[in-house]
């Protein structure tokens, strides 16, 4: 049989896998990406169907255990108050993500120096800035220049509309004199790079049938494939092969029919996200690496960070947007930077969420006894549909070695590969930050005229952001990869997804994940002749 050999093997075709593959394509090396999932067909997305709200809760659920497709792997979340949310397929999590696209702040890379917690990053905002800009062009970002919470950044498309919900909430922030700004978003407000503009379907987190939201299947991947990258779907990697010299040699994977295959490579790049990557490394045990690949520090799988989320919603007399319009609307970073008088270190972002569709509004309202059943039902439901809006608080999670991903001794995916198991607990700092965010959120909603305010913290199914489980650093005893994404232990093995984050910041991570992937790719290109030194 002909040997399947490539120069670069990328594993995972999500946010970071797409970016790294596209960037490396200009080297003209032979690049293959293996992805366990499939291409999405926008016709299948819930918003193209009448029962879009229940489809979103079932076959397009962001909980992989509920979605349970052949292309998903189960995750044991029993020992975590927050459950993992993801999507497995070309585009990865960007198929279902909301498209909120904040950058980190300069202070986020210096948490130890500034606040005496966690570790500083081995790189800084200035290092990533050109890659943020490049990624913004590739993904197409909508937003407004001049946000005083940030250093200046370019504007590519106009911001998403304020709408009814944004207007209500902006008034609340203004009454308190607190910061707010239109959110940076990957929802295209104009036609952009072959994408149509947003028509306010409001179903972004179940896939954008209009193709307005920048998922990487419609941004990076078409460019990468045109540039010569081969993307193979339904290929689930079981383990990375290790050569006798201790270098990565390729991977063993199962194709869509469950047949075992082997591919060899000069360089392996892992982009399987903060859960899939440690799972793969821990499953890649060998004589040379008995504790899992690249794990001499013992930190593979450790320091798992989510963003604990609070949710604060209220009812208004005025009409809100409900599900109409992109979920992205406005954000506030009034409480972003550390102020120790608040009782916690670091901070959080408020992101306004316009509202939900009629079915979900009533389902939630009835199950939490806010909407009556029986004789008064219709009156009560009419007082809630398109009358609710609010926000979520995205709290910075600090790394803690006890929060970790391990292999479940029993649970396996459909190919028999051991599944991940989480151990995760909220820190006291996170609990205080969540409480504080709820108190401030209530003040905002009250100032905006809201009543019957409901709060949740942490959002139990809100494990959307997966970070820290193979972190970067200069000291090989305290990190898994170096300052440009190369594993300390294996010099031709790179990691580019959210697992290399040192800290989580208080913002959604994908813009930074992709900027990091482009930065790692660029560093590789500059060092091609000395890559393994």
């Amino acid at each position, binding site marked *: 049989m002909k040997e399947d050999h490539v120069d670069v093997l990328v594993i995972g075709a999500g946010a970071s896998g797409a970016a790294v593959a596209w960037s490396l394509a200009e080297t003209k090396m032979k690049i293959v990406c293996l992805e366990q999932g499939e291409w999405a067909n926008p016709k299948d997305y819930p918003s193209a169907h009448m029962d879009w709200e229940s489809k979103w809760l079932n076959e397009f659920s962001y909980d992989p255990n509920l979605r349970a497709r052949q292309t998903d792997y189960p995750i044991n979340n029993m020992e975590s108050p927050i459950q993992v949310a993801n999507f497995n397929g070309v585009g990865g999590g960007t198929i279902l993500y909301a498209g909120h696209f904040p950058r980190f702040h300069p202070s986020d890379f210096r948490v130890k120096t500034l606040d005496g917690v966690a570790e500083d990053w081995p790189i800084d905002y200035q290092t990533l800035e050109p890659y943020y800009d490049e990624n913004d062009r590739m993904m197409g970002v909508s937003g407004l220049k001049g946000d005083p919470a940030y250093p200046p950044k370019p504007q590519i498309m106009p911001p998403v509309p304020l709408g009814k919900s944004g207007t209500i909430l902006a008034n609340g922030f203004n009454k308190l004199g607190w910061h707010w700004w239109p959110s940076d978003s990957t929802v295209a407000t104009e036609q952009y790079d072959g994408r149509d503009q947003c028509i306010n*379907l409001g*179903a972004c987190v179940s896939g954008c049938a209009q193709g307005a939201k920048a998922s990487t299947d419609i941004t990076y991947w078409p460019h990468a494939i045109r540039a010569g990258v081969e993307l193979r779907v339904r290929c689930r990697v079981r383990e990375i092969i290790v050569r006798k010299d201790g270098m990565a040699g390729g991977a063993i994977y199962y194709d869509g029919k469950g047949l075992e295959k082997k591919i060899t490579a000069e360089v392996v790049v892992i982009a399987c996200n903060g859960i899939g990557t440690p799972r793969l490394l821990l499953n890649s045990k060998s004589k040379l690496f008995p504790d899992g690949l690249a794990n001499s520090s013992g930190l593979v799988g450790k320091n798992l960070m989510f963003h604990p989320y609070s949710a604060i919603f209220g009812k208004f007399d005025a009409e809100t947007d409900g599900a109409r319009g992109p979920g992205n609307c406005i954000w506030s970073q009034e409480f972003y930077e550390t102020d120790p008088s608040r009782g916690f270190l670091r901070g959080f972002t408020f992101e306004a969420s316009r509202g939900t569709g009629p079915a979900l509004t009533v389902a939630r309202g009835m199950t939490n006894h806010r909407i009556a059943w029986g004789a008064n039902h219709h009156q009560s439901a009419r007082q809630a549909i398109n009358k609710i809006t609010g926000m979520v608080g995205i709290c910075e999670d600090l790394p803690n070695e006890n929060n970790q991903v391990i292999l479940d001794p029993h649970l396996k995916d459909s190919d028999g590969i051991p599944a991940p198991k989480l151990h995760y607990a909220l820190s006291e700092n996170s609990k205080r930050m969540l409480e504080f965010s709820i108190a401030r959120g209530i003040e905002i909603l009250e100032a905006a005229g809201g009543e019957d305010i409901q709060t949740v913290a942490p959002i139990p199914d809100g494990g959307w952001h997966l970070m820290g489980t193979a972190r970067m650093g200069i000291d090989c005893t305290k990190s898994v990869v170096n300052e440009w994404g190369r594993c300390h232990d294996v010099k031709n093995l790179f990691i580019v997804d959210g697992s290399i984050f040192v800290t989580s910041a208080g913002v959604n991570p994908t813009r930074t994940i992709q900027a990091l992937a482009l930065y790692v790719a660029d560093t590789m290109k500059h060092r091609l002749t000395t890559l393994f030194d």
Partner: protein
Amino acid sequence: MNQLIGSTSPFSEENRNTLRKIAALLIPKSEEFKVPGADDDAVFTHFIKLASGQTNSINKYLEDLNQICRNDHGDSFLKLQNDEQISLLNNSESLLELLLSYVSLAYYQDPRILSTLSLKSSPPFPGGYNVEQGDWSLLDPVKKRDPFYRKV
């Protein structure tokens, strides 16, 4: 055995009838709002489809409900008066928790119901919605603020 032979329904006929009655009690027909109840054929079919993901739990809770009916009233749920049925349901928290969300999801995705709420009665795509820009002058006070991110 009360499972219908040859039926693909996950629920026996009796349980389907009970579920249909419960659906009508949870979301009743309304003359005032000119809407059918959740026992309407199309809504109920969708409800059963959604509920079939939890067949075992629902069948078990229905069995418990009927057991209570027989013990306390000497008859099955379907034979009781409306007010007795409502009071029993009020005490069946686990069953309600499951059914309320299925019933409302089925009901509020029906195009006829959405029309009565003056909402779009077709899928969001294509067509989408209009969302107004809003009053961007609301941002003026924030624009006046000095940059407040921490310099490092």
